[in-house]
């Protein structure tokens, strides 16, 4: 019974999220939004690549680096979208739609509600990620033969990685209870740290050595590594481009990813409950800032 209610809440909020993401204007606009925006994002990346490869001395003909950056950037869309999306859900439900308090006082589990909203965010982002990867392979000449892709590893790594990202998002949602709309900065900051230090586009070894320990404790680092192996193959130029992770065997990478994901899931429960409690104590569940 309880499980059924949780499942119903999850389905319902995922449905709502999907409506919110896809229905806000019209289908054409949605299609353009989910194709043009990700591709535009990759063009910035191409410039960065040219810059980086010159800085590395090799000139703009380094397919391993380009593949490394391109896939990292595409997958990072999940991190950015979920981290921004979750806070956006709390703040918009609270202040714009003024529905947060009514969902909050319903018997629905609020954690599961945010979970459902995050999952629909992931679904929408997946469209963008796939579009970006196809664009990279067809238009930018990234060498990613389908036969090289390890599908089981990809699905496994993807599932664990996304669970980890969602756990991050839920913890942030707990914090977002306490922050006002446009209070700004926190999510951008956290996403920025991940982007910089987890090897999303900059190989970790390119960064100053003091940042390496940071990279080695952040699960996103291992997720991106596992995904690069899954897409390009172990020992491929892309997967071993980053010297720091080149030595990891894949089971080790998966294990670290799994353990840190579990830790972050537990943490997200704690932070979410704490944020919930503090918000109720301070009267922030129906806060409007009227900026």
């Amino acid at each position, binding site marked *: 019974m309880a499980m059924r209610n949780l499942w119903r809440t999850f389905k319902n909020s995922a449905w709502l999220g999907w409506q919110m993401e896809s229905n806000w204007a019209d289908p054409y606009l949605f299609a353009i939004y989910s194709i043009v925006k990700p591709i535009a994002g990759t063009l910035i990346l191409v410039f960065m690549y040219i810059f980086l490869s010159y800085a590395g001395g090799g000139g703009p003909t380094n397919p391993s680096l380009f593949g490394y950056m391109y896939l990292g950037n595409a997958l990072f869309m999940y991190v950015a979208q979920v981290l921004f999306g979750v806070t956006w859900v709390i703040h918009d439900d609270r202040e714009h739609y003024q529905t947060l308090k009514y969902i909050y*006082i319903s018997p629905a589990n609020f954690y599961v509600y945010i979970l459902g909203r995050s999952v629909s965010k992931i679904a929408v982002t997946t469209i963008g990620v796939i579009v970006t990867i196809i664009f990279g392979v067809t238009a930018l000449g990234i060498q990613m033969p389908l036969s090289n892709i390890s599908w089981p590893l990809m699905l496994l790594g993807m599932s664990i990685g996304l669970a980890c990202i969602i756990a991050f998002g839920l913890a942030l949602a707990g914090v977002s209870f306490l922050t006002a709309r446009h209070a700004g900065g926190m999510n951008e900051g956290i996403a920025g740290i991940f982007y910089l230090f987890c090897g999303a586009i900059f190989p970790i070894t390119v960064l100053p050595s003091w940042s390496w320990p940071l990279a080695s404790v952040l699960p996103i680092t291992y997720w991106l590594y596992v995904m690069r192996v899954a897409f390009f193959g172990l020992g491929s130029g892309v997967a071993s481009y980053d010297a720091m992770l080149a030595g990891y065997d894949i089971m080790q990478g998966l294990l670290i990813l799994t353990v840190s994901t579990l830790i972050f899931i537990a943490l997200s429960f704690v932070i979410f409950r704490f944020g919930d409690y503090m918000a109720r104590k301070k009267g922030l569940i129906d806060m409007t800032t009227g900026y």
Partner: protein
Amino acid sequence: MTSYAVETRELCRTFTSKEKRGEPKKVVNALENANLTVKPGELFGVLGPNGAGKTTLIKILSTLLLPTKGEAFVHGHSVKTESHKIRYHINMVCGGESSGYGLLTVRENLWMFSQFYGIPSKLAKGRIDELLGVMNLQDKGDAKVRTLSTGMRQKMNMVRGFMTDPAIIFLDEPTLGLDVTTSRQIRLFVKEWVKAETDRTVLLTTHYMMEADELCDRIAIIDKGTVLACDTPENLKRRVKRESVLRIEVTGMGDAKPVSGIKGIHAFNAITDPAKGVTTISLILDEESAISDILSAITKGGGRIQAMQKTDPTLEDVFITLVGRGLENDNDNQP
């Protein structure tokens, strides 16, 4: 466990406003030692002016806000430690806001909320249609919420509140800012809903004394966070002696203040209707002998008396007696 639908014990809530430049921290007692009991089946009103603490009370009872001190029980469960148990039995509608997902249709919005309560989809759809009919909103069922007027959104939210068939519903100023017709519709609906089955409980807040008088079985009068009286409307009004309530309509009087200082007046309130230029002075007298002084003060102040009568006390008079000032603002005379 208590057998009350709602019970509060020494309930307190303070707010500490953030320090602003130049201004020190301020502590507001939004609710102070409130002791209230609402029985199952009652239509209970909380009447008080703006800032009295009505919304704060509703928020605590509906599990949105924790009390600072004291306890509150809803459906026998503590709002502090058993909020998850309370939530199956309650719902809430707040006036004066336009909540809802604008890009969903009215039906989608309502259906979605019904799912958060685990109501089987078919039952939910039936109830939604029925209530949309009651609220005269049936042809808006498939309209996007963003196209609705404030009044329609408010009615949609009434459907949202009542469709879960709560044991206890909290209505925070449900007719705030609505036109007369819509307000009347909503009042009528609430009255019938509570009577239709035993043990349906309504706790509503309002600052319209007519609304409280017309609807409520019992009323708590509240001001500055303190419950001043709690009784049936009849008993409350009986506290003010009929002989002592005097209403005078005056024209041409800029300031009615001088009247208020006359000896023998227990309470005084003046409301000016700027459109008509008429000031209605309500007085509650301790001594009949004050009347002649009052009349001469009015003439001296340049006022011309249009009408004067002793009347049955209203809840407004009860409030004036208790607090020493009127309940409604001058520019806020909605029926």
